[in-house]
């Protein structure tokens, strides 16, 4: 043995090394690889394989046979030899290699021959014993009990006795006829298609080679005459069939459920697992499982990681399939394309109508504005409800009186309301009234400031701007803010927009509630805003008989007029729309309306005509369409 193979990594190592030079695994103390010394020990143990030609040459017996062995009669030795004769075909199997022989030697330890301890047996003793106990029974019992007794004695004396495997080997010497095989098992074996290699017979399955000394004794005994009954019960005979008469065995009481599980006699039961034949399997030559047959090797080469094979993921399609796929893609592409909407024509019927109406409305207005026509009479104050009363209330204000003006209208209505507002502000400015400007809309302060500038620059035509006013700014809180303003203006609006405490100076220092103002003028285009002022502020003013005046839009006039016409009236004066503003201007002698009234009049007239013509045309077309539909329905 020139080199030692490592049991862990399987690589060769020099014989002088104790551990593997590659993996540092112990080489000589490993459990499976024995050292040369250990191998010598194993080889000294007599094994069937280590005693060649004993079975083929029964006459060659070792000279070291004990005296007890020599005392055995020849006929008995021949009987044993005839018993061991059928095991000879096993020696025809291919010899395992060196490592396999070592493993077999480890697993099949041959017991130390105990023939020396056997008492001498002579024919007379055996004949008398058999005569007393009956044929076969005693001999069989004696043969079966002897190994067990020897094992028990060995245990008691501490000598190396028989192991359980050896006991089983001894049991294997029992004749097959003495093993009570149930009838159902015999049937199953007969019906089973799985046979062991070499056509294993029931007797062979229990056979284990006997030691060489015993074989020699048996071969020697064959030359002796054997009694007739011994020949009948020799081990070479086939086991008795179940039909042979036996001593009746009292059947045990088996529960019903167990009886149901027991296979019936007629039922052919096959074994759940076939017996695996590992004789032809490879023997592990390296690794911790070296020498074992039929196991998976733990050699590193067996579990070595390898690069996985590459497989192509390219889809293999035929030309026909490819053509169909392309066709499907084209279909889907067509579906996904947004269909262009039909282009709208630049000029449609609606566009034409809209343009015609716009031109019909705008042209007269442009003409009147450009020409500044004042041919028609302006609206008279007496013809416009609320204007005269409004003018009277303003005229009744004392000079320098504090007046609260609320700018609560949207810039879009400035064209309609600015004429009236400008006229009122001019009139108030002429009376040097102290104007307190408030608003409930965010755009109110800007509108107020713009109008005050216009009044100062244009209407009054004064050299200096009108400064007798204060802009108190935005009233937060909506309805609740107005209620707070009515109760305590200085609490809700403590400072003006420019941050001054205007309530500390005249004339606002005398103001504690809204009724202390000489008049309240609300400018709004929203009827809801007007209603809130009337509901929240009006009652406070009525207690002091202070006027609540409105400058409003035409659209809010119908909803404010009931408050004005009520008895007692809740609104003491009202100027509504362009007509009201022009009418109010007439009361104070303001300059002409510069074509505004004519433009409004003609635009209203044109609008009425358009509505009438459109209604007539619509009715005519609907009537014609209805008649045509009736005629179509009457036709068969």
């Amino acid at each position, binding site marked *: 043995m020139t080199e030692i193979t490592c049991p862990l990594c399987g690589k060769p190592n020099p014989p002088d090394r104790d551990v593997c030079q590659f993996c540092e695994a112990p080489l000589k103390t490993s459990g499976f690889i024995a050292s040369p010394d250990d191998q010598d020990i194993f080889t000294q143990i007599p094994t069937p394989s280590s005693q060649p030609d004993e079975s083929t040459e029964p006459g060659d017996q070792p000279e070291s046979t004990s005296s007890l062995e020599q005392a055995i009669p020849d006929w008995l030795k021949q009987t044993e030899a005839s018993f061991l004769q059928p095991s000879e075909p096993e020696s025809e199997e291919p010899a395992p290699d060196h490592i396999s022989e070592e493993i077999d030697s480890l697993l099949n330890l041959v017991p130390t021959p105990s023939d020396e301890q056997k008492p001498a047996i002579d024919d007379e003793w055996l004949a008398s014993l058999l005569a007393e106990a009956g044929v076969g029974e005693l001999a069989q019992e004696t043969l079966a009990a002897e190994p067990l007794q020897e094992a028990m004695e060995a245990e008691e004396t501490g000598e190396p006795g028989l192991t359980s495997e050896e006991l089983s080997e001894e049991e294997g010497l029992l004749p097959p006829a003495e093993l009570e095989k149930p009838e159902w098992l015999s049937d199953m074996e007969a019906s089973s298609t799985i046979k062991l290699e070499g056509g294993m017979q029931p007797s062979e399955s229990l056979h284990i080679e006997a030691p060489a000394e015993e074989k020699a004794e048996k071969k020697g005994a064959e030359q002796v005459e054997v009694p007739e009954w011994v020949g009948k019960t020799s081990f070479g005979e086939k086991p008795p069939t179940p039909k042979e008469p036996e001593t009746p065995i009292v059947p045990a009481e088996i529960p019903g459920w167990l009886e149901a599980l027991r296979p019936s006699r007629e039922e052919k039961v096959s074994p759940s697992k076939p017996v695996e034949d590992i004789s032809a399997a490879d023997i592990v030559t390296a690794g911790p499982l070296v020498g074992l047959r039929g196991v998976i090797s733990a050699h590193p080469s067996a579990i070595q990681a390898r690069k996985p094979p590459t497989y192509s993921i390219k889809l293999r399609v035929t030309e026909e399939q490819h053509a169909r796929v392309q066709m499907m893609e084209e279909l889907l592409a067509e579906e996904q394309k947004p269909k262009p909407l039909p282009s709208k024509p630049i000029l449609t019927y609606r*566009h034409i109508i*809209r*343009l015609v109406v*716009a031109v019909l*409305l*705008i042209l007269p*207005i*442009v003409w009147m*504005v*450009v020409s500044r026509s004042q041919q028609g009479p302006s609206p008279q104050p007496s013809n416009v409800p609320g204007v005269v009363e409004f003018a009277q209330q303003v005229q009744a204000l004392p000079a320098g009186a504090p007046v609260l003006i609320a700018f609560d209208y949207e810039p*879009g*209505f*400035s*064209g*309609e309301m*600015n004429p009236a507002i400008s006229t009122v502000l001019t009139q108030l400015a002429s009376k040097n009234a102290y104007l307190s400007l408030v608003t409930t809309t*965010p*755009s109110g*302060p800007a509108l107020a400031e713009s109008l005050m500038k216009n009044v100062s620059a244009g209407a009054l035509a004064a050299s200096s701007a009108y400064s007798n006013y204060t802009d108190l*700014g*935005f009233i*937060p809180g*909506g*309805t*609740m803010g107005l*209620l707070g303003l009515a109760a305590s203006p200085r609490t809700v*609006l*403590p*400072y*003006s*927009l420019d*941050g001054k*405490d205007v309530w500390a100076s005249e004339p606002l220092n005398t103001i504690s509630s809204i009724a202390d103002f000489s008049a309240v003028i609300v400018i709004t285009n929203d009827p809801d805003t007007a*209603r*809130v002022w009337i*509901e*929240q502020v*009006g*009652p406070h003013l009525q207690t002091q008989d202070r006027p609540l005046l409105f400058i409003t*839009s*035409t*659209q*809010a*006039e*119908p*909803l404010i007029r*009931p*408050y004005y*016409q*009520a*008895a007692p009236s809740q609104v003491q004066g009202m100027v509504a*729309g*362009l007509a009201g503003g022009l009418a109010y201007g007439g009361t104070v002698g303001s300059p002409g309306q510069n*074509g*505004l009234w004519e*433009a*409004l009049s003609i*635009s*209203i007239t044109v*609008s009425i005509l358009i509505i009438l013509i459109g209604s007539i045309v619509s009715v005519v077309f609907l009537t014609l369409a209805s008649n045509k539909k009736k005629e179509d329905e009457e036709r068969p």
Partner: protein
Amino acid sequence: MIEQLNQLAEPIGAIVGFVLTLMVLSYIIGDNVLFRLAISIFIGVASGYAAILILYNVIWNQVLVPVYQIFTTGKAGDLLSYVIRVIPAVILGVWMMTKLSPRLARWGTPVLAFLTGVGAATVIAGAVRGTIFPQVQASINILNTQTAPPELSKLVGWFINGLIVLVGTITTLIYFQFGMKRQEEGVPAQRPVVLDYLSTAGQGFIVVTLGVLFAGVYIATLSALIDRVRFLWDVIARFF
């Protein structure tokens, strides 16, 4: 410099107004980019102006300036008044800002409930005291002979006007009367014939009222159009 800017502000404003007016009037030819741009500008400017106004007029003038005034004048009475009047409002206002967060929104519910309750009470009290009772009293007195004019010509008009108001009020109220007497099973419910006629008359009054309101809106719109046309002409006459 400022005087020059002020002088330029008016013509620049006029030009900007002129362009914006034309952009809005371009809606005559249909919805277009110019119209939408002008509308967007108006909305943005109005929102920004409102935000600045509220921050300046409410937060600055009514919350912060009083504190400054109190510390400069050192009046203890003003401080007490400020604490009683402004601090609760500030606390409620900050508390209500929890509504901005979905996680804390439920904590702002009491403030919202307080505002809603107070607002509803204010509106209802104002409506009862300022509209319902006075208007009912006015309707009752509309044909009061003690308020009749002494002149015969005006008396006829007064009577006709009062009669129209009386009939219109009654028939309009009947129109909104939807209750009816319980009928036997299987018999369709139907109002009395008289109420049906009166309801139809009330429906006519409602239609006339809505027509008048629409006419007022239309006249207001025409007035705005006339004002814009005149503005455009004034700008053209001014610069050309």
